[in-house]
């Protein structure tokens, strides 16, 4: 059977849409197989908010300049050198031409959001956030003649030596298949598959929350890896941050973040502190706290602040638990009362001169004489009312993915697969070996989505 489509794209987020629009503009007949229902289309892209973009002079909403060298340096810092330099530089260099392309395809930008001024030079913010970008791209794609199937669950890509010969999927309760001449996978990581996460991380992963879409279950990724498609990235690792412990299991997104750790003490369920809360400014430390909390009993932490710190950080979605005494707070949060009081007393006694306190820079206001020091912003917790938040590990994405070349093409040990390309989170592990750089996921998705679309269309023509 010959398919009515030249190209099938698996996934419905930013990378998939960029690929679809690019291929359709080159004349290919394209179908998007999105596993989510329409209301939840767009994968993790619907939770994003900006695009990290190189630029030599002010560009759109971006001020000043942000050159390749500095951009690559920033990437090296967060990945600790775990990156593929060729692919990384390709993503960085191409990002500049992407911004006007995005505008042409319906994306609108806005000035840097309040509370994010530090990103005004490097990151272009989407007006309305990632879901509005996704909406605009679906409108543009549909105008270009791209077909979209929602709730289309791809179960298998049939790999015959160096070609994908068939796509099996279910749609509207029926098993179906397609035989397009080219296939692009842009279906994200596997973080929503708790079992897989548990195999990779250990039983602790059951208590992790997933910050993004519940639809990134890695079905296609597992299918391709099982057939010998080459992988990249550490299968046991995921990007995780500490978020509000009351967040929903999936899809809590941006509003569940908690920025108050530097002004707090953080204790585990025994009411003991376990790490320096003031090690560095929060944007540089929030990612390690996902891991720190994951290593505590029951994978939970508790942030304690007092009234003088309440307005020093961005508000989050759930109001803090409030109490007039530490005993009452311990009771409300299910912590051992006596030990919480003791921990706070010990911490308070270790605080010194706090006159140099400065909430937005490393102020060197530190504790002395305790085993776990706090090296900045160390002020005693002594002004009621007291406030508490619970902290859990929130997984952003997994690093394990498909290895691709500069054309976004996938391969097996015996060489390239002639008609398979990958874009977005599913191949981001090539460039992000560890860590994360704000807005870089959208850059990878846009750059490699467009490359995959171009290559697949060339192949189909």
């Amino acid at each position, binding site marked *: 059977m010959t398919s009515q489509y030249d190209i099938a794209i698996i996934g419905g987020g930013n990378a998939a849409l960029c690929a679809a629009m690019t291929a359709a503009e080159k004349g290919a007949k394209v179908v998007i197989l999105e596993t989510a229902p329409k209301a939840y289309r767009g994968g993790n892209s619907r939770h994003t908010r900006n695009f990290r973009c190189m630029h030599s002079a002010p560009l759109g909403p971006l001020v000043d300049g942000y050159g390749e060298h500095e951009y690559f340096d920033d990437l090296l810092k967060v990945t600790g050198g775990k990156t593929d330099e060729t692919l990384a530089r390709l993503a960085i260099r191409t990002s500049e031409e992407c911004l006007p392309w995005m505008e042409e395809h319906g994306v609108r930008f806005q000035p840097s959001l*309040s509370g994010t001024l530090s990103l005004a030079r490097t990151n272009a913010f989407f007006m309305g956030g990632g879901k509005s970008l996704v909406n605009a791209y679906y409108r543009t794609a549909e105008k270009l003649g791209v077909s979209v199937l929602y709730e289309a669950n791809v179960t298998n890509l049939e790999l015959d030596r160096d070609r994908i010969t068939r796509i099996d999927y279910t749609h509207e309760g029926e098993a179906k298949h397609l035989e397009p001449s080219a296939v692009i996978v842009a279906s994200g990581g596997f973080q929503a598959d708790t079992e897989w996460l548990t195999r990779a991380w250990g039983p602790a992963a059951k208590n992790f929350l997933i910050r993004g879409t519940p639809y990134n279950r890695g079905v296609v990724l597992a299918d391709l890896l099982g057939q010998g498609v080459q992988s990249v990235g550490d299968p046991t690792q995921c990007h995780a941050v500490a978020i509000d412990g009351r967040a929903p299991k999936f899809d809590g997104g941006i509003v569940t973040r908690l920025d108050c750790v530097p002004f707090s003490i953080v204790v585990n369920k025994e009411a003991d502190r376990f790490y320096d809360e003031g090690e560095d400014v929060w944007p540089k430390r929030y990612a390690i706290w996902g891991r720190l909390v994951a290593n505590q009993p029951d994978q939970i932490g508790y942030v304690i602040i007092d009234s003088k710190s309440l307005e020093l950080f961005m508000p989050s979605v759930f109001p803090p638990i409030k109490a007039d005494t530490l005993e009452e707070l311990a009771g409300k949060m299910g912590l051992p009362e006596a030990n919480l009081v003791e921990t706070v007393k010990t911490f308070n006694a270790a605080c010194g001169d706090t006159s140099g306190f400065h909430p937005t820079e490393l102020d060197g206001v530190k504790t002395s004489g305790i085993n776990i020091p706090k090296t900045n912003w160390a002020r005693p917790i002594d002004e009621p009312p007291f406030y508490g938040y619970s902290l859990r590990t929130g997984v952003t994405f997994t690093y394990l993915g498909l290895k691709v070349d500069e054309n976004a093409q996938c391969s097996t040990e015996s060489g390239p697969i002639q008609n398979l390309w990958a874009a977005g989170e599913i191949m981001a592990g090539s460039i992000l070996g560890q860590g994360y750089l704000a807005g870089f996921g959208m850059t990878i998705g846009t750059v490699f989505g467009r490359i995959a679309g171009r290559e697949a269309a060339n192949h189909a023509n």
Partner: protein
Amino acid sequence: MQTDLLQEARRQVEICNACRYCEGYCSVFPALHQERFFSDANLTQLANLCHNCRGCYYACQYTAPHEFDLNLPKALAEVRQDSWESFAWPAPLARRFQKSGVMIALTTILAFALLFLAFRTLGAAGGVGFYAVLSHSAMVAIFLPAFLFPLASIAVSLRRYWQETDGKPVTPSQIVDAFGSAAKMKNLAGGHGDGCNFEDEDRFSQARRHAHQAVMYGFLLCFASTSAGTILHYVFDMPAPYPLWSLPKLLGIPGGILMVIGTVMLASLKLKADRSLGAPSAWGGEMGFILLLFLVALSGLLLYALGSTAAMPALLAIHLGSVLSFFLLTPYTKMAHGFYRLAALVRDEQRKSAG
């Protein structure tokens, strides 16, 4: 005001305040992001600042079926509607009309009947033209109170609004900026200038903005036309009817045409739009008000076109009756939104200048 509506709006804006993705769409979000805790007064001001452009709803990753179930345009529309009812004077009238197109229609029909009765009983008293049907002094006797009463009522309401939202003494530049925003309907431009989301889900379009401006400018032209006629009558001793090349006609005819086009567009857009993103209970009242404006404009144009035919007395009764109904209901219908919106825009200028 109803605490459950306020509580729901508070729940939603606290989530918005933790997200901030919509900051660029309109004036609501910068105002919202400046607060950390939301008093009833904050919520009332945000609700009246909201133009219901719906950009935030379609961009939101937390709308149903997500468990956060955000629908900010609706939550603010309900608080806004409720605030108008609570500020209106006298209050019982407001509750009757704001939500009910039927009540608006009944009032209009009563106004027709009143005019017909006036034609019968008061008569011409020797006038010509329209005044051959009803004398000028009788018209003034009916319309002067019908004009002044709503103004007094609106003044009371705005004073209540200003007290509730802790408004400060107003400066000329605040007025200029607020009227400038309304003149361009900046808050329906979507921040990027592509317009708002209304008739076709997340597609941005200028249709509603243009329709609204046609009605608004059409209405202002008609109002200017009536004012010009009043001045010609009293100052220059030039009573109606006026020829085509006269100020009242040159203002009134384009004004009436704009209003007819604008109200037809607004009504058709309103039929296509998702009702659950506004205050569903007010839909009938809003539609009734649009139709009343349409009737005012259309009957005015017809009266001009057919003024010298036998249809004139009937058309005059319909036109004057609909105008009478429009005036009397101004404080209690969607018409009031213009006054509250301007007050909210001025109040927002004060917030901005206070930093």
